[in-house]
């Protein structure tokens, strides 16, 4: 039973990757269409056909993706985020979830190619390289804090990913506004750089609040499990670095001369540190947070 469900779950993951890849292609075609429209001197009125298809595919892919995670959880009998492969599934699912949720508030579909590209890459690499069969939860992870701490950390990652994408768009846009990058015509259909900055800021501060909670929840759990709430373990160091970089980002936004491009760079550096924490630190650094499930 367990193995059947786990197998279905894996099939669903690969299906989700395929659907996401199609969505990615459609989002890229949409950018192409925006370029063409800009060339022809037409404004892009509303969503293009490509964009509507891409967005629908993203939702479909996400439903399959979530179904896969649920199946894996049922098969395992515990929350499906206890090793590297499962973290990757969760992280990408939550990134898409944040992308979809932000859409309810502001139109950020122009970001689709970035988000979908990132997700297809991360999920594909993880499914191929990090897949591990379901294992029982080791005693070190048998705690309610696993559910809370890891989930919130992964959710924060989703917000930082969308925030990072918006900041990249902001940098490109502001360069175009300054007279550069005229060849990237699709940027003309993107919001102005200050608008992009405002949305990015909103998304990132939500991520920062969640990250703060992650740190605190992790400290409480560490106190319970290891007898100290803070011990500068490699993972703790990088969680701290990420926190400080985003604290820097928020300060930069309030410092004259640091608004705009400099703070956008900080948001990107912060997201890069998040990715580094998730990949390189998990795989190559030794430490107490050794739960990748890989040898």
């Amino acid at each position: 039973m367990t193995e059947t469900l786990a197998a279905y779950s894996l099939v669903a993951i690969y299906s989700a990757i395929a659907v996401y890849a199609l969505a990615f292609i459609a989002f890229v075609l949409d950018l192409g269409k925006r370029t063409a429209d800009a060339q022809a001197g037409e404004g892009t009125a509303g969503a293009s056909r490509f964009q509507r298809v891409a967005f629908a595919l993203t939702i479909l892919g996400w439903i399959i993706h979530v179904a896969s995670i649920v199946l894996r959880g049922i098969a395992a009998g515990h929350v499906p985020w206890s090793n590297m492969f499962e973290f990757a599934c969760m992280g990408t699912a939550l990134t898409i979830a944040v992308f979809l949720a932000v859409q309810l508030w502001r139109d950020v579909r122009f970001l689709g190619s970035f988000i979908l590209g990132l997700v297809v890459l991360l999920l594909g690499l993880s499914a191929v390289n990090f897949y591990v069969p379901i294992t029982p939860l080791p005693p070190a992870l048998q705690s309610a804090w696993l559910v809370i701490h890891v989930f919130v950390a992964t959710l924060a990652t989703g917000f930082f990913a969308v925030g990072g994408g918006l900041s990249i768009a902001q940098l490109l846009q502001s360069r175009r506004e300054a007279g550069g990058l005229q060849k990237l015509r699709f940027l003309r259909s993107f919001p102005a750089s200050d608008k992009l900055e405002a949305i990015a800021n909103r998304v990132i501060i939500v991520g920062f609040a969640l990250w703060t909670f992650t740190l605190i929840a992790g400290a409480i759990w560490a106190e319970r499990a290891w007898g100290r709430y803070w011990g500068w373990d490699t993972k703790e160091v990088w969680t701290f670095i990420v926190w400080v970089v985003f604290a820097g980002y928020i300060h930069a936004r309030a410092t004259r001369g640091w608004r705009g491009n400099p703070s956008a760079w900080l948001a990107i550096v912060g997201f890069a540190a998040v990715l580094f924490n998730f990949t390189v630190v998990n795989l190559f650094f030794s430490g107490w947070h050794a739960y990748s499930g890989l040898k």
Partner: protein
Amino acid sequence: MTSASRSDRPADHVDNADAPGVAQPRLGPLGYLRFFWRQLTSMRTALFLLLLLALAAIPGSLVPQTTSDPNGVLQFQQTDPELYDVLDSFGLFSTFGTPWFSAIYLLLFISLVGCIIPRTKHHFDALRARPPKTPARLQKLVGFTSLPTTASADAVVATARTLLRSQGYRVETYGEASTGSASVSAERGYLRETGNLVFHAALVGMLLTVGVGGGFGYTGQRVLVQGEPFTNVRASYDSFSGGRFFQESALEPFSLRLDDFDADYAFDVTSGVWHPEDFTASLSTRLSGGDWEPVDLKVNAPVPIGGTDVYLLGNGYAPVITVRDPDGTAVFSGPVPFLQLDANLWSRGVVKVPDGLADQVGFSGFFYPDPVQLTDGTFRSFSPVDHGESLLTLFAYTGDLGLDEGIGVNAYALDPTDLTQIAGGDAGAPALELREGDVVELPEELGTIEYEGLRRYISVDIHHDATPVWALVFAVLILGGLLLSLFIPRRRVWVKVVGDRIEYAGLARGEDPTLAEAVAEFAQKHRDALDEKMDG
């Protein structure tokens, strides 16, 4: 921005318009101090220190740290002594305690305190002040809206007041309806600044809790072999580290004993791996003068004894080994903890017999709880579970074990370089193989060795720290303050009667992306309320 917001924030805060007149008079010593202080408490310096702090933390993750990974540090020292010396001269093996790392965060915190003290005073005044006078012209402010009205100035003001109040604004009426210049000035979101100040003050509290409070605690590790009691005195620990202000009298008098240890494993057929599912150590604890009381210790569930907590870290097997001289007199006897090498508890251990035999004798070898012999003759452990078939394989050495020199020697390691191997390897005699209950003759007629029985051991971390509660309090304040300061908009809204028109406008104080919408929405609601009033 208004002048009111200028005084409390550092001069380079975005809320402050370009600082007036940079022309500096000649500075006296006091002037320099003021200049330096203003630099230190500026936003730019705080930002610089924050980024520097992030950078400075990176080496702490690349190089093993004495606090979190002492064995890693030892290993580093052995494999690359030259690089070790270079890195050690920068203090990189305890990055987070080095003067340069401390200097960064202390400067950051001084900058922080210098920033929040004047802001706290200013905010305290603002909390008691009336919303400021309505600006003469609202046209240039956010969300400016001008609408015609037939309602009386009094009705406009009264409705605006009620509506703004219900939205959490503090309101103040300025001007006189009779002179035709009545207006309502409203401000809300004081909690944004309160939250911001609480957040920063709680960070200071956290630093003090960890830095000062943590200095009174201690942490120590100890291997507890089944049946052998442990008493909480410093000499009983295998490793121990006390905080800056720790005194030995702080060790609470209690004893611990491991009575039994249960480990549950599940066999994964596909990968052939045994996954641990549960570890339970049955302990007996005794406070001084009391009776032994049974208690279960698990991972993620420490056992509190008085103000001290005991944590389960690791476990393994401790074969009971007895070495006898040729006359049959025991010269060594006792359980020897073997340290885990793989998931199936294939383990390594050492026995040292410095006295009683013709020569000093050392044993070093492996323990297999569930041995299987491979075709090449070597052993592996098939599972971490002992079925009474467990196996010890030992190399034996003679020579100076280095125990007489009085320097600390790792009890779990034997350095064979200056020793003569007498069993195993190229010694001519085969390695000693003992099943539980076996007695084997030592080469060169030195005596015998017996594997008498098997016990479990656990390694525990014993920890005393009074700060977690305070750390939690400050953590909650940090999170709460942060949420308020990030998500509550601080804004001013004005409603002004100008002839037969009503003007609406807002002013953001800090990040407030939805202000224009909020003003428009308010104008709409206000009109609806006025209409209702006039109809009714």
